[in-house]
């Protein structure tokens, strides 16, 4: 159990330019810290590790106080049971993979250290690279060794600072599954900093969304990313359409409300708001279905005619930027793109369930 409560101000020329003020706890599993760069994610990790000293607050791990400004406690890094995994691995270049992993093992017996380091490498599926030096390893292998090294020191929490951002997409996905797997086996909490919504949703048991030094929402990742409660969260989590409109009409009996957007209308679940109230609607880009034909009988309450303005490919995933009076981005697969022969200028129908449209703010 990790409890973090910290405040820290950053000053430039005597003026406060950034204030970090967060309070959260991690019971079990993987907690994702998500937010734009400069939102304070890394500073939180560094404070837990003892690299950075908060102005005030309290950090506690497994009933041991690491930092308490009121009691004047600030445990040095060496005494904190943390495993830190960095974006650029930082393996000791003068040691082999096995020696790197064995470095933090607290045992005076060299044979036992090597044996335990070997076991951990085996668990991560890289038993064969023990004799190699970091420069002889691929990026994915280096990050596995770095993870193994962090785990080998018997930490009470593992802190991962954007561990996958230097890797290619297929390695990322595989390694992400392995990180989840390793967490389940080790049963210690992981704190995982990322700016990838996909990684956050896939790996996180809980997610903390940070913006300008504050936690603006926390909860299950799918919930946080699919149902951001404020426009700040929605913008921080990305891949989300944020639409400004006004309440046009209600049908309480049928449980719907109609929203006027700039150029079209949207049916959403019933909201208790007076007509003409300005609202902001969020629709996740992958909650929208694209059809080339007008489909009559469906449960989707919204059928919008739109024109594709641009196709943005990102590996196997594609964002269609469409216009239907308002701009909407739609996440589809590359396969769907090819099968439907979608191009800029193509006229399409967008199907959106009312319940996929949620009210932000």
């Amino acid at each position: 159990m990790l409890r973090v409560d910290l405040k820290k101000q950053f000053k430039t020329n005597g003026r406060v330019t950034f204030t970090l003020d967060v309070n959260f706890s991690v019971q079990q599993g993987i907690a994702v810290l998500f937010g734009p760069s400069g939102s304070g994610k890394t500073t939180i990790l560094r404070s837990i590790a003892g690299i950075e000293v908060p102005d005030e607050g309290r950090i506690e791990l497994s009933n041991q106080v690491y930092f308490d400004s009121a009691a004047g406690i600030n445990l040095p890094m060496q005494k904190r049971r943390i495993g830190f995994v960095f974006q650029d691995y930082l393996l000791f270049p003068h040691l082999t993979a096995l020696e790197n992993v064995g470095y933090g093992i607290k045992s005076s017996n060299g044979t036992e250290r090597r044996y335990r380091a070997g076991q951990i490498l085996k668990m991560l599926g890289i038993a064969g690279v023990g004799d190699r030096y970091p420069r002889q390893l691929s990026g994915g292998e280096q990050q596995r060794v770095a993870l193994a090294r962090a785990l080998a020191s018997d930490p009470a929490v593992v802190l991962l600072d954007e561990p996958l951002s230097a890797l290619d997409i297929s390695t990322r996905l595989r390694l992400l599954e392995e990180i989840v797997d390793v967490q389940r086996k080790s049963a210690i909490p992981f704190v995982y900093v990322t700016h990838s919504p996909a990684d956050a949703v896939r790996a996180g048991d809980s997610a903390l969304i940070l913006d300008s030094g504050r936690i603006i929402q926390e909860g299950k990742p799918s919930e946080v990313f699919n149902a951001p409660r404020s426009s700040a969260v929605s913008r921080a989590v990305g891949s989300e359409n944020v639409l400004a409109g006004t309440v046009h009409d209600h049908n309480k009996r049928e449980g719907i409300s109609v929203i006027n957007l700039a150029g079209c209308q949207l049916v959403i679940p019933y909201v208790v708001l007076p007509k003409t109230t300005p609202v902001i609607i969020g629709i996740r880009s992958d909650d929208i279905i694209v059809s080339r034909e007008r489909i009559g009988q469906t449960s989707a309450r919204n059928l919008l005619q739109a024109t594709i303005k641009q196709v943005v490919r990102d590996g196997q995933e594609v964002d269609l930027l469409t216009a239907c009076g308002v701009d909407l981005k739609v996440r589809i697969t590359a396969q769907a793109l090819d099968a439907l022969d979608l191009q800029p200028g193509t006229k399409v129908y967008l199907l959106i369930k009312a319940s996929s449209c949620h009210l932000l703010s």
Partner: protein
Amino acid sequence: MIWPAFKLSLLVVTVATVLIGVVGTGLGYVLAKRQFRAKELCDAILTLPMVLPPTVTGYYLILLFGRRGWIGRYIYSLTGWSLAFTWQGAVVAAGAMALPIMVKSARAALESVDARYEMVSFSLGKSELETFFRVTLPLAMRGLVAGIVLSFARALGEFGATLMLAGNIPGKTQTMPLAIFEAFISGEDRQAQVLALILTFASVATIYLTNILTRSQRSA
């Protein structure tokens, strides 16, 4: 004259290099990794022998270590012995003259080690001392060895400060550079030539070795 001077030079320079290798690395570490207010002033004072005339450095060494010197008087009253006019005095003189090179090289070599490696070591529960020996030192080794080689060469060529503190006693404090001077003055050109050749060869070897050490990219 040649053989005793050669033997003495070798002894003096070896002892001096070992001493300043250790002391210089320690001072370089403090200058590279610690933040304190008088840091650059300390660096300047340690560098002083590099720019001062060697005789001035020698003069200061006498003020410090002479029989009536600030430190020397206590050594003398305790032991009845003084550093002046001994081979140990030659070691101190050569060491003082070569120390700036060692400190500069060590500071640069240790500063070039990414501090985050040390951070990782701390996070794995290692003390600063253990981190120094197992991470910082190995990663800085190449630069440190280059510094040691250069210091060795500087100590080997030491003349002025040695003359001031240790004098020029054949067989006792007369190192090779002093022997060359004396041979030349007394018209023994042959001896001067041989000694000059030995020192030239040693210097070429030093520069060659330093270049190899600092150029190669493969880590130690």
